[in-house]
Each structure stands twice: as C-alpha cells, then as structure tokens.
C-alpha cells in the first residue's frame, strides 16, 4: 500500500490496456464506449486498492482520463494491423447504408482507399487526436463512477472539500 501521493500510472496503464484492446478489436467493440468507461472504472478500483490516503472524485477523473489517453494510443496502434478488417467493416456499413438510400454521393467508396504502404501519417494523427479527446472524456467518466463505487471513504466525506484561506485580503 502506498501512503503518499496517489500513484496513478499502474492503475491507469491497466485500465488503458483493457479499454484500448477491447475497443480496438473488431467484433469485441460492439459495446461502443462501454469498454473505455470500464477501463476507467478498473483504473479507479486499482487506485483505491493501492492507496491508503483519502481519495476523491477528482482522483478518479484523473486516473480515468490518463487511462483513456493510454487506451486511445493502444487502440490507434492496434488499428494499424487491423486496418484491413476495420475497412472491410466500414465498407460493409456503407454498402448496407446504400440499401437504405436511393442515391449515394459520387465517389463514396473511394473514401476508404489507402496508399499501398498503409495508413498515412497525417490520417493516423487526426484519428489519434479525436480518439484521445473522446477516450479521455469517457475514461474520466468511468474513473469517477469507479471512485464512487469502490471508495468507501468517499461516502463518509463531505460533499465539497474545504478551500484554504490563502487568498484572504490583507487586513
């Protein structure tokens, strides 16, 4: 047990690996954002277990957000080897959408065309940026939910922490 500042790296890494891998693998990602929230919950649970000092919802948000960021990197890296499967999924999605629509916009099937070398670097970073922002938000949400579920000391804590009188006006 750690008695100093909460050490968030290992819990965040565990939550990030869980969320990133399960979100990145086709078929398993059918539960939408639930895996990322689950990763945040796991990270908060591990943080509560490994910390003796009092924790609060902010600690849950922090460890969950870091878990979400790590999950985004893992999901994006996994998406490189799994890109052909993912593109096949998206092609099938667009083909099924074409069944609902009388006329698809010209050239829609070329959106998935990639250079022979695979994913381009700008495309990878655009995807990473968007995924990181949304995963961090979902991870933070999961972290706070996890903190509220697993941190029993939180239930006995006052609703809002007291603020220090450091900015009191001089007399």
């Amino acid at each position, binding site marked *: 047990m750690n008695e100093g500042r909460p050490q968030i790296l290992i819990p965040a890494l565990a939550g990030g690996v869980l969320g990133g891998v399960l979100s990145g693998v086709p078929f398993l990602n059918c*539960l939408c954002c639930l895996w990322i929230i689950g990763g945040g919950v796991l990270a908060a649970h591990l943080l509560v277990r490994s910390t003796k000092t009092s924790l609060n*919802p902010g600690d849950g948000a922090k460890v969950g957000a870091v878990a979400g960021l790590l999950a985004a990197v893992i999901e994006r890296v996994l998406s490189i080897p799994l890109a052909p499967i993912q593109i096949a999924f998206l092609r099938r999605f667009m083909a099924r959408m074409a069944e*609902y629509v009388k006329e698809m916009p*010209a050239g829609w099937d070329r959106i998935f065309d990639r250079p022979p070398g695979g994913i381009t670097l700008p495309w990878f970073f655009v995807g990473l940026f968007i995924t990181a922002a949304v995963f961090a938000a979902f991870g933070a*949400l999961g972290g706070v*939910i996890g903190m*509220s579920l697993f941190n029993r000391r939180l239930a006995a804590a006052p609703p809002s922490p007291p*603020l*220090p009188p*450091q900015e009191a006006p001089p007399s």
Partner: protein
Amino acid sequence: MTRTKTAASRRFVLLYVLTAAGLTLWTAAAVLAPLLSARPGPIGSFLYLCFAPFCHQRPERSFLLDGRPLAACARCFGIYLGAWAGIAAYPLLRGFSAVRLPRLRTFLLLSTPIAADAAGNLLGLWSSGNVLRFLTGILWGSILPFYFLTGLGEWIAFRPRKT
C-alpha cells in the same frame, strides 16, 4: 476564503460551458453526418469515420435522417441526448458553488434499464426496437454529467492549489 471560493466557482462554470459545448458539437456531428453525406465531398464520410471507434453504427439499429442513418446508433444517440439533458439540468439541481456525487441508488435506478435491455439483447432473450434502445440510453445518459462534472470540477476547479 470567499474570494478563493468565487475563483473556484468561476473555474467550474468555465468547465461546465466547455463540457456543454463539446457535447453539443459531438451530438450535432452525429446528426449532421447523414445530411452532409448526401452532398459531394468527404465531410459526411469523415464524420461517420469519427464515430466508428465509439459505436457499431449498424444502420438497422440507428435512426434515419433524410434516408440515411445517424453516425451513432439509437442507444448511443439516446445517451448523448440524455447527457445533454443532464447538462441542462445541472445548474438547477446542483449549482456551481460545490460538487457532489449522485446517490448510488439513483445511479442503479437509471442504469438498470439499459443494463437489462443490453444483456437481454446480447443473450438473445429478446430484440429491442430502436425506440426502447433510445429511451434506455436517455435515462442512463442523464446521470452521466453529474459524475463527469463532479470529477472534473473536484480535480480542476475546487482542489486546493499549492502555493
């Protein structure tokens, strides 16, 4: 003490506005994707791709707009709209001077319908229509901002600053 608390409340209001703006943009993108995909250009398809890591996007499980599915399925779209309703209700129910987590039983009450419906569908016990998926999503989504804003507010706005 009062000035510190006022500054913390201001930071929290800023967090609230940023969260509301981000959620509004995200929800609008889900609605705009089918409308923009009807026009020439890659923006509509790009919006669909943006949602792909977060939603299965199956057309038969999504609401249609202009004959095309939204970028998020009915359940996810319900969660986004529910979260939007929660954001709108937050100032009335909580205010900006302090943060407090919801009660566990409230969370369980609002989570049980979506959990039961998703489990029933996954296990093949029944197959829900889009309206039921949407409604269970709204219920669950409505409580999420109360966790998100409490965590973020406690982390960024209300935590005592080191001098």
